[in-house]
């Protein structure tokens, strides 16, 4: 299934992960997003770009902020938006997912925004949906969350100019994080100078180096002289799975405090995909401090999602 995401001219058809995308794709997405940032600051925040298009949020897994930003992005492009939350039972079966899909397809929609607990679910839907329907992956299992990664790249680009000179540290549960995987792929595509991952071995794959990252198990060493620190959200379930002893010990070792932050470059930016567990991943002083760009990430998220939706749904010559 190579080149599932792009058409013969290289234009985006779906946005599922970064596998068959190029440096230029990422730059185009960010450049397009740039043009939408201004719109979101106007008093009338709408453009008629996707008028008459129907976008369906198909969220099999609960989400508030991702869903909201996708919905807002679609509405600001004047698309009609439907939100579906199909019930998924413990014994979910392929038939029900495909049936749900075809039922909604029959309503003549143009795009699915998909979130699902299974890795590969967005690929599966892209492979089985009508050829005229596009799919954006809004998070599938531990696999990918490409729009989140793009909004992170966009945020970094706003603060730092040249990716090739940057040192970026990703801290926390890399093993289970679709966000981290997508960030690493995007940072690599943008030829980032150095990508570090910082976590105990229980939250890293043995093979993580094959993704082109440096591995640190010590936060102080890992964030030394970095330009960007991305903190990942720690799921409470990780304590039950014997991956970590306690939130306290995690915070002691991997929690970002104002003191530790001094080890990074003076102009370091601190990011987090949200929602933050204050006192677990980081101190409130850091989260709300001058280095934090966490709320900017959220507003850039809308611009990035507008960019991806419009690039997929409108022919390139009209952009």
């Amino acid at each position, binding site marked *: 299934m*190579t080149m599932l995401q792009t058409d013969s001219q290289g234009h985006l058809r779906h946005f599922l992960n970064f596998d068959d995308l190029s440096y230029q794709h990422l730059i185009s997405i960010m450049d397009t997003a740039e043009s939408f940032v201004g719109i979101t600051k106007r008093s009338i925040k709408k453009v008629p770009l996707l008028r008459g298009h129907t976008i369906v949020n198909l969220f099999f897994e609960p989400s508030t902020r991702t869903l909201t930003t996708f919905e807002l992005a679609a509405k600001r492009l004047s698309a009609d938006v439907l939100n579906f939350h199909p019930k998924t039972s413990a014994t979910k079966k*392929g038939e029900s997912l495909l049936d749900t899909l075809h039922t909604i397809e029959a309503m003549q929609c143009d795009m699915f925004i998909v979130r699902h607990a*299974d*890795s*590969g679910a967005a690929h599966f839907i892209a492979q089985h949906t009508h050829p005229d329907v596009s799919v954006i992956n809004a998070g*599938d*299992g531990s696999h*990918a969350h490409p729009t989140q990664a793009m909004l992170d790249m966009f945020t970094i680009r706003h603060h730092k100019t040249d990716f090739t000179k940057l040192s970026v540290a990703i801290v926390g549960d890399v093993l289970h994080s679709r966000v981290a*995987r997508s960030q690493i792929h995007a940072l690599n595509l943008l030829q980032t100078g150095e990508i570090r991952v910082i976590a105990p071995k229980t939250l890293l794959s043995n*093979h993580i180096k094959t993704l082109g990252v440096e591995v640190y198990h010590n936060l102080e060493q890992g964030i030394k002289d970095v330009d960007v620190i991305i903190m990942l959200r720690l799921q409470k379930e990780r304590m039950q799975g014997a991956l970590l002893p306690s939130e306290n010990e995690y915070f002691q070792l991997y929690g970002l405090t104002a003191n530790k932050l001094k080890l990074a470059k003076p102009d370091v930016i601190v990011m987090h995909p949200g929602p933050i567990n204050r006192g677990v991943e980081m101190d409130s002083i850091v989260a709300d401090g001058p280095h934090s760009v966490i709320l900017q990430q959220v507003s850039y998220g809308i611009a990035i999602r507008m960019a991806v939706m419009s690039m997929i749904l409108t022919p390139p010559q009209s952009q």
Partner: protein
Amino acid sequence: MSTATEKICIQNAHIINPAENFDGISNLYLAKQKIVTIHPNLTDFTPDRIIDATGLLVIPGLVDLNLHLKSPEIEPKFNFNRECEAAQANGITTLCCPPHQRPYIDTPAVAKMVHHSNKQLQILPIGSLSKELAGEHLSEMVSLQQAGCIAVSNGVYAISDTLVLRRALEYASTHDLLVFIYAQDHWLQRHGCMHEGKVSLRLGLTGIPEAAETIAIARDLALIEQTGVRAHFCRLSCHKSVEMVSKAQQQGLPVTADVSISHLYLTDMDVADFNTNCHVIPPLRTEQDQLGLKQGIANGTIQAICSDHTPLTQDAKLAPFPSSLPGISSLDSFIPLALRLVNDNTISLSQMVSLLSWQPAQILQINAGSLNPDVWANICIIDTNTEWTLTQDNMYSQAYNTPFLGWPLQGRVKYTLYRGEVVYQDSSISIN
């Protein structure tokens, strides 16, 4: 089709009888459902039927140590007899049914039912090692054996309680029962759906580490040594497992092993991008593992290749990878893929025949898998030169869950004989 009492001469055939290391052009004579002899020209034999096997390969009927005739899905999905016919059409005359097919083979009644479910195919049920395969209480192993079970096993369900496992092996050993072990550590394989490695990392799929298999093998070897049980490891997937089994064999432990045909051709790379037809248990591992498995069949550490045929409906595979059911419908590519191992010089043709018939029969200690006089005339006749492409239309299995669709293959079964009777004949052959 012939009748069972016919006297048959299979003429001018390339015959391989691995039991006697015979490999040459000759005639094979059958009477009263049994093999009479291999002889260039038996004068006092008047055949009722002559099968001209010029240019064809004649070998013992295949003995498959692991073949699911039923889908593991709860509801029966496929016609049982048609799946039996698919086995015959692919040269299989003896097969072992794992205990985890539904209903579980854990009572003598079910064992008898399975054992006698088809008269033109030797179906050997494998009884459960623990009650309801739950790994808590011993099953009635001796009663299961009396009802036709050739071996006992806990199927794909790992027994996590080592004390229960030890007791089960001790009890099996007491009654000289063969135990089939699918070695997986219950905890390490939990939630996993593919090999833990670079590909699982990239796809964000929960991996099953190599250690899930090697830890279980280390534990099982220790218990096998202690209990003295006859044990057979099913479907090895890691090169390290092959090394461990080999070492145990060198130390004199009477353990045997098999590998599934799919693991000799596919690796975890084939899972990308989320190809559910490559979702299989044990998982497809790395190229290095595949190489180790190939060395294992070449050097004799692994004595048998099984099909691990698992028919599944389209619905079972039409799901995101972790929610799809594992298994490959492998019958229709079984012999062609085995022949490829000969073409790529992994093993010799006679080794291949032995791995598919004689050696698995030896593991089961049954009088099959050979062309020796007085053995049931179970025979597979193959045209090794036919080139064809696997498509849904030319599959005999009712299930199309195979990643080999569209593969160019070489070699097809022309005839299958079971107890002297032609039970399958390639439809393109005109009947004399």
